[in-house]
């Protein structure tokens, strides 16, 4: 079966400032995501996880290598993918409802029809009755729900998520994780989920890919998560199998995390 998303030998080198040496963020990375699979990428901060996601979205061109979406080479933006950003991505001048329906508006969907679908999606992410509020009138968690609905209303085949819940407090975060899993369970899409939180990665995914510390990051380990579904992200953390997997993956990651930490420390001018 053709994978939903396939990255083939991707390398990304950013040109250095004022003719200096370029910075290679990602080197020779290959990654396949099957249709309906939930894959998480974990790695130390600053290792190039987001770069990889931007490549998959088509927001960034790789220096070498190819990206294929359902077997077709990607040209321009990835129209089959929805992207959920780490930082605030809602348009602050639009109400929650207008934000959710933005994608439909861009596609020329009839306004009344779009509003109806928008209300439905707001309801589904627990924001029923909040449609008229502006982003600054919503809490951080509500803004994330709104961004989630904004992405899901377009029914993307692939969901790209860049540490979407990292700015939330732990309770809200687990709530959102469970809601995301529930939505995903109802209509299985391929998910590429970036996080630096190993527990989040294990509790949600079918597969966890560990990246090396940058520069020139590449996958250094891949782990199949055979925990039963449906899962509750808070409860599953207590099960022996979870702890076993956590132990395994952490063992593989530890060295890279320390390496990444040492690098950031060395960057601080003495």
């Amino acid at each position, binding site marked *: 079966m053709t994978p939903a998303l396939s990255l083939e030998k991707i390398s990304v080198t950013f040109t250095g400032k004022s003719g200096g040496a370029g910075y290679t963020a990602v080197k020779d990375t290959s990654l396949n995501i099957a249709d309906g699979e939930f894959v998480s990428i974990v790695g130390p901060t600053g290792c190039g996880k987001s770069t990889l996601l931007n490549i998959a979205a088509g927001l960034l061109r790789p220096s070498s290598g190819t990206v294929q979406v359902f077997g077709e080479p990607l040209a321009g933006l990835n*129209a089959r993918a929805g992207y959920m950003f780490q930082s605030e991505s809602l348009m602050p001048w639009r109400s929650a409802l207008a934000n959710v329906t933005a994608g439909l508006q861009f596609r020329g969907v009839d306004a009344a029809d779009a509003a109806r679908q928008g209300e439905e999606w707001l309801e589904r992410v627990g924001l029923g009755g909040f449609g008229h509020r502006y982003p600054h009138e919503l809490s951080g968690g509500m803004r994330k729900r709104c961004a989630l609905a904004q992405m899901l209303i377009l029914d993307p085949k692939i969901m790209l998520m860049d540490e979407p819940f990292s700015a939330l407090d732990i309770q809200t975060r687990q709530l959102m994780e469970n809601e995301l899993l529930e939505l995903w369970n109802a209509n299985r899409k391929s998910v590429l989920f970036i996080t630096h939180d190993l527990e989040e990665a294990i509790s949600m995914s079918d597969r966890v890919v560990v990246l090396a510390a940058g520069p020139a990051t590449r996958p250094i380990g891949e782990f199949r998560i055979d925990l039963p579904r449906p899962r509750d992200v808070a409860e599953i953390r207590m099960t022996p199998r979870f702890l076993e997997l956590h132990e395994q993956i952490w063992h593989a990651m530890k060295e890279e995390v320390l390496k990444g930490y040492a690098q950031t420390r060395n960057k601080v001018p003495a």
Partner: protein
Amino acid sequence: MKKLPIWFWQVALLVAIFVGWHLLTVPGLVPPFYFDDENKASFFFGEPLKIFKVIFVWFADGEIYAHLWVTLQETALAFVIGTLLGLGIGLWLGLSNTMSAILDPYIKALNAMPRVILAPIFMVWFGLGIWSKVALGVTLVFFIVFFNVYQGVKEVSPVVLNNARMLGANASQLLRFVYLPSATSWVFSSLHTSVGMAFVGAVVGEYLGSAKGVGYLIHQAEGSFDINTVFAGILVLTLCALLLDFAVTLAENKLLKWRPQQAETETT
């Protein structure tokens, strides 16, 4: 003692200023301590009661309305034309790096130039009617709006922009639904200054040469050393400016509802 509201003190201060003004200028009330002649104070500073009388007569006879109407017309036209030009060119240069690089020194030079000296040229070009004043106001308003829009376009959050692109917005939709709202919010934040500048352009233009408008009234009175009428004109202009500012605040509250206010609390 019960705490008196702020507006009470504001009104009290206003009354105090006029009472002080009255006592210091009306001949014979307070012995002269600076001028050698007791009539000189009122010659230089006018007398509040006479000033109010001039204003009253203006409004009672209806003489002022035609002048006010002209000044407001000039202000409104200068504001609208200047804002539209600033918005259009600001968007254009904000989105085109090449054009903004080429035009950068010219924009800076035009902005640095004291534009009031263009007034005589505009009079030659557009005559003594309202259009020479509108032109002067436009040159003042344009740069305020232009710089704000330019900044607004440059500072659109890249995340919001990429998000809109991922949601399927094409180039013209990005312009209409992302750049334009972002830029207009910057225009509105400069609204107070730009309306004020349009007003300045109109009055200064009238003052330098015209046959109508409040600036013209002031200029005329000055020619005959009628200081009371000059002050009356100034007071009417100040009142007008305050009303304009109030109207802008109303418009702002309506249009910038999506902006976070400081320390906003829920009201349901």
